[in-house]
């Protein structure tokens, strides 16, 4: 039998590294529907899960895939699905169900160019706002953006840990380039990998309230079949989980759902800076485009320009404070992303007019060459 943690030095694609990260994080249920460029995640999971005691199922569509991973999580399994744009659209309603029922699970979106079927085999970063607002109603979400196969391995573990800790769905917003890129991936020993598992309830089962927050603001989660007789609903509910169709109940529930992410921003938000110390211009980027940003920083520095990179590891919640602080010090921001302006608007909003904000965007289908960033730099700064 092979072990869940595939310790060693490998050469693997981002998609496979994502699947290995999930296994290392403790994922034991995976339900998905095939779609390029995410299919390899499902294929790898179909081979690996049964040998570590988990279950893989190819569902009939992405709506079902998303429903199945919520169900599996309610039964106690760490669960995941993977998809790309068209399937991500189909998952939206049940992502809302995971949010309102506070069910941990991980969704991987290996982005390709849209709208609609678009460029099925070519990457993009056009779903960033959909990750934030795609399901109806107001909510907060956690979304991560890996920039290499090694990175996606660790970010997938991080996604599971955040999801279990805060009882939220976590979205990994990768892209076709990272998904299909083969690079060296080092998988450490199992005992070097930190995994988090949801807090289970203690105490009297008959008095347990499934949505009553613990001291950390997060409600312990009862698993189906353990005798807690819980009721879980997508309707607005009270701490008992019972539907409550009042404005007050809605307010209380929303405050908790949104609050558990807003109040823990410092724990959740991760970014990485490169040559930021004396930077006058900051490139803001994530996913494959942060590699464009990295190359552009080095090139610009060679030309004597003080440029640095802020790579977003968590895109949502957005690192507002960090952008605000930088905006007070720097001349400008250049957001590099494979869409026509999504995270750029967030940067602009947080910069609040204190620094100039430029976009180096792309309609999708290929990576952005660093020269385009240099051009913008030279023209505007």
């Amino acid at each position, binding site marked *: 039998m092979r072990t869940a943690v595939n310790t060693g030095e490998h050469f693997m694609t981002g998609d496979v590294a994502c699947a290995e990260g999930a296994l290392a994080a403790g994922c034991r*249920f995976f339900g998905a529907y095939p779609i390029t460029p995410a299919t390899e995640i499902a294929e790898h999971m179909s081979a690996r899960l049964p040998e570590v005691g988990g279950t893989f199922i190819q569902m009939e569509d992405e709506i079902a895939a998303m*429903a199945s991973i919520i169900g599996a999580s309610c*039964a106690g*399994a760490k669960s995941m699905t993977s998809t790309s744009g068209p399937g991500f659209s189909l998952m939206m309603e049940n992502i809302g169900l995971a949010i309102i029922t506070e069910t941990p699970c991980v969704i991987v979106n290996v982005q390709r160019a849209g709208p609609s079927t678009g460029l099925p085999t070519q990457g993009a970063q056009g779903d960033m706002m959909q990750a934030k607002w795609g399901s109806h109603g107001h909510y907060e979400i956690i979304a991560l953006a890996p920039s290499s196969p090694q990175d996606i391995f660790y970010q997938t573990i991080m996604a599971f840990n955040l999801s279990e800790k805060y009882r939220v769905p976590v979205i990994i917003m990768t892209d076709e380039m990272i998904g299909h890129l083969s690079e060296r991936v080092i998988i450490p020993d199992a005992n070097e990998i930190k995994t988090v598992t949801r807090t289970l309830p203690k105490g009297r089962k008959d008095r347990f309230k499934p949505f009553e927050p613990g001291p950390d603001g997060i409600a312990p989660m*009862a698993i189906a079949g353990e005798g807690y007789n*819980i*009721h879980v609903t997508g309707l607005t509910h009270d701490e008992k989980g019972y539907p409550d169709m009042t404005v007050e109940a809605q307010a209380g529930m929303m405050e908790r759902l949104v609050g558990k992410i807003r109040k823990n921003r410092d724990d959740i938000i991760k970014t990485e800076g490169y040559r930021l110390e004396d930077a006058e211009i900051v490139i803001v980027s994530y996913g494959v485009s942060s590699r464009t940003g990295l190359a552009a920083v080095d090139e610009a520095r060679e030309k004597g320009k003080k440029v640095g990179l802020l790579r977003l590891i968590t895109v949502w919640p957005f690192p507002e404070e960090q952008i605000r602080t930088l905006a007070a010090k720097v001349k400008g921001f250049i957001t590099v992303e494979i869409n026509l302006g999504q995270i750029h608007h967030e940067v602009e909003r947080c910069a609040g007019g204190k620094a100039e904000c430029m976009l180096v965007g792309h309609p999708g289908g290929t990576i952005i060459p660093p020269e385009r960033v240099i051009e913008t730099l030279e023209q505007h700064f």
Partner: protein
Amino acid sequence: MVKMKQQNKQVHHPLDDLIRTDRIPHIWCPGCGIGIAFSSALLAMKSSGIDLQKTVMVSGIGCSGRGAGYVNLDSYHTTHGRAIPFATGLKLANPKLNVVVFSGDGDLFAIGGNHFIHAARRNVDITVICVNNFNYGMTGGQVAATTPAKAKTTTTPMGNPEAPFNLPLLAYASGASFVARWTVLHTRDLIDCISEALTKKGFSFIEVLGPCPTNYGRRNKENSFDTMKLYQDHTIIKNGAYPSELDIDFHKTVILGKFLDIERETCIESYDKTCRPMELVEE
């Protein structure tokens, strides 16, 4: 007086332990068939002897879908049409659970139709109880995939131009292991049938015909009593009937009974055999 009060206190409904009594009154209209289908399901859970702590009810959205909200078991009220894939995830992640889906015909066969046929094909070991009231009760009585031809609903004011599904035929053709149909008038048969289905290995499907007086009945000049009378006068019990005979036309005779009860490898059994290394398969 005092004595009477004490006596009153001792009066319990036989299903009190299986109902979230703190959620009563329920939303169902007077004369609605869902309550009978629901209590039949609970009575069957008791009589079947299954471990209730390991029993979970999953519903979609609709009047019938409120079932999960009233049962005093682990219960999940999901999204419209998605009870079955949710239940599939629950069952596959913990095969020890008894998973019961309780929902409406619109939920399970219109928006959720694709999930139904695939779960039956896979032979996921769950029990699906569908309350068929011929329309969308919750949203005010629109046409459903089960509405009889020519019947009036709010979106077929001139009569339904379409033909309804024959649900047992669909279940049979999709690969279910157990298929039956009863009405809320035939409670004893219904309870026995659900009880049998709960302990049956594989995908079990029970269609339960029940009135929706508020919406379907009102527009088709049929109060609950009339509907129950139809259930009495225009049905025959024919166990083992061939599924293609099971179209519903109350102008003629509607067939009730258990139509299919076969042994077939379940989704999990087949997965363990086909995909898992031998040493990992639990006996």
